[in-house]
């Protein structure tokens, strides 16, 4: 009888956990890109982009002034009754991400493909990360297409070539948007692991999304007075309460995303949150910040978005590793 070498007797795993990762990514991306679900979402987002950008162009043409960042205005200008494209993305990106992820794991169980796939020489790690990356890449692909579409519309419709700074800022916009999608993708996957029924997983993810996007900021306004009450009517107390409210609101990824967008797409933004007059001493108001300074401004928001994604993914990972394979 052949004994294995001593090294494999330890509780170490053999081989790389990422064996087969790219096979999973390729397969899942192909599935996403050819699925009816994705086509519907693509139509939705293209219509949104064209509609909002067209409306933005109309209003920009009427009120055009000396603005060095006209291209960025395409993303952020709202014209009644349509909101700006960036505002729409705050809603659409989570929807797309959840739609991509909510049946990723439980779907394999329900199709009875899970045991077959895991009987292949790969670890569960590769399957989970592969599915996540495929969703992220699909999202990135769609967003890049939209980004090119908007820039193209801007050049054709307004006859303005984009400046280097504008392109750099809008590329960061793209990156932040994809990471924002990453959170919802990870959330959708956690629910798809936790619930065997895809419909339950989808509803749970949508419930969390609506709660965080629509209700959390209202709740933050209600909770802040209890956590930081105003007893004496001192200015410090008002300040503390406002800061508490802002901190609470920032627990929601949508707030983080909205703030990042504000700083990135509107270079005049000098601070996110509360600013005291003393802090503005010596500042030349109305002058745009360079990109590096804007990035510095949103760095906490950016790391917050990425950290939330990693935490959610880790939670899904732990849940998935503990799951029994037999259905």
């Amino acid at each position: 009888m052949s004994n294995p070498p001593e090294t494999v007797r330890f509780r170490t795993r053999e081989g790389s956990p990422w064996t087969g990762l790219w096979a999973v990514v390729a397969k899942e991306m192909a599935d996403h890109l050819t699925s009816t679900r994705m086509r519907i979402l693509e139509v939705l987002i293209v219509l949104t982009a064209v509609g909002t950008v067209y409306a933005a162009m109309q209003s920009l043409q009427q009120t055009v002034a000396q603005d060095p960042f006209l291209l960025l205005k395409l993303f952020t200008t709202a014209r009644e009754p349509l909101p700006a494209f960036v505002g729409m993305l705050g809603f659409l990106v989570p929807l797309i991400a959840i739609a991509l992820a909510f049946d990723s794991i439980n779907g394999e169980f329900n199709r009875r493909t899970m045991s077959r796939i895991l009987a292949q020489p790969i670890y569960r790690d590769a399957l989970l990360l592969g599915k996540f990356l495929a969703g992220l890449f699909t999202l990135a692909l769609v967003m890049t297409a939209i980004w090119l579409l908007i820039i193209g519309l801007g050049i054709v419709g307004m006859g303005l070539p984009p400046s280097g700074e504008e392109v750099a800022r809008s590329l960061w916009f793209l990156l932040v948007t994809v990471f924002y999608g990453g959170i919802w993708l990870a959330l959708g996957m956690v629910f798809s692991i936790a619930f065997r029924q895809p419909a339950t997983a989808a509803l749970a993810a949508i419930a969390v999304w609506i709660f965080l996007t629509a209700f959390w900021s209202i709740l933050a306004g209600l909770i802040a007075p209890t956590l930081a009450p105003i007893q004496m009517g001192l200015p410090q107390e008002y300040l503390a309460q406002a800061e508490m409210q802002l901190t609470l609101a920032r627990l929601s990824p949508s707030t983080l995303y909205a703030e990042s967008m504000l700083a990135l797409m509107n270079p005049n933004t000098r601070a996110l949150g509360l600013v005291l007059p003393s802090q503005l001493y010596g500042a030349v108001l109305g002058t745009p910040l360079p990109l590096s300074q804007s990035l510095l401004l949103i760095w906490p928001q950016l790391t917050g978005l990425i950290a939330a994604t990693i935490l959610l993914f880790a939670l899904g990972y732990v849940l998935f590793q503990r799951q029994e394979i037999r259905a």
Partner: protein
Amino acid sequence: MSDPVIETHGLTKRYGDTVAVDGLELSVGQAEVFGLLGPNGSGKTTTILMLLGLTEPTAGSVRVLGLDPARQPLSVKARVGYMPDEVGFYDDLSARLNLAYIARLNGLSGQTAQSRISEALERVGLSSVSDHRVGTFSRGMRQRLAVAEVLIKQPRLIILDEPTQGLDPEGAREFLDIVRSLKEQGITVLLSSHLLPQVQAVCDRVGLFRRGRMVLCGTVPELARRVLGGAYRIDLLADGLGDDFAATLGQVPGVVAVTPQDATHYTVSAADDVRADVARAVVEAGGRLWRLDSETASLDDIYVHYFQEVGHVESA
């Protein structure tokens, strides 16, 4: 003899308080077809999952092809083909694309993958529909596609969990032909099934599971000897015999038990085919022989008999 393909010692799996597999000792050799039998929930699937490293054993050791599935899962899974009891495929993809995904997960690509896929589809007779969506396949076709998938990685051991469940008789027969051809290639096959005649038809040895324990293990004649007392059942119809003929028949060498059905009809269990001796005994006793049939004991009889017996012991 070469090293066993599967070897377990004291293999145990507990889920909380329930013991799914209890101290399993199993050894399966090269090119052997081994059948796992037993009622639902007797630990067959859990055993299979532990052999593949998909579930960690609570205690005991497993060696599959000389490897430890819990520590070297990738090597084991690269060499072992597994067909679960409920096979599912991606219905929107064609048969070929479904297999291509599995090939890529096994690190096969390009020409090698394509030729192995074509070969496997040819082998199970699905070449003509290889570009059809799997969603349009019948149950039998899916089952055969699952075999093709297993063949792609050219395994040395194939584990089939309830492979013929829900197949029509023709589909099941074709399936068993495939299993036999695998054996001829020197591939070891571990098969779990409820369909006893099929297990008997293809398996070299069988193991009978009951409540997580393998209570019987051996070839079908061996089991028949142990459970029924004899591997052969002889059906005798003769008249003109005395009342003590049953005792006379019991004296015939090789006869284990005689059960008179009525005055003219006897059922004889024997270790060998002793029809000639029985015929002589009838003639010597002055009887007239009408019918003398011999059949090897079926797995069905063994199974039913065994579970009735343990049932009696338990209710007593």
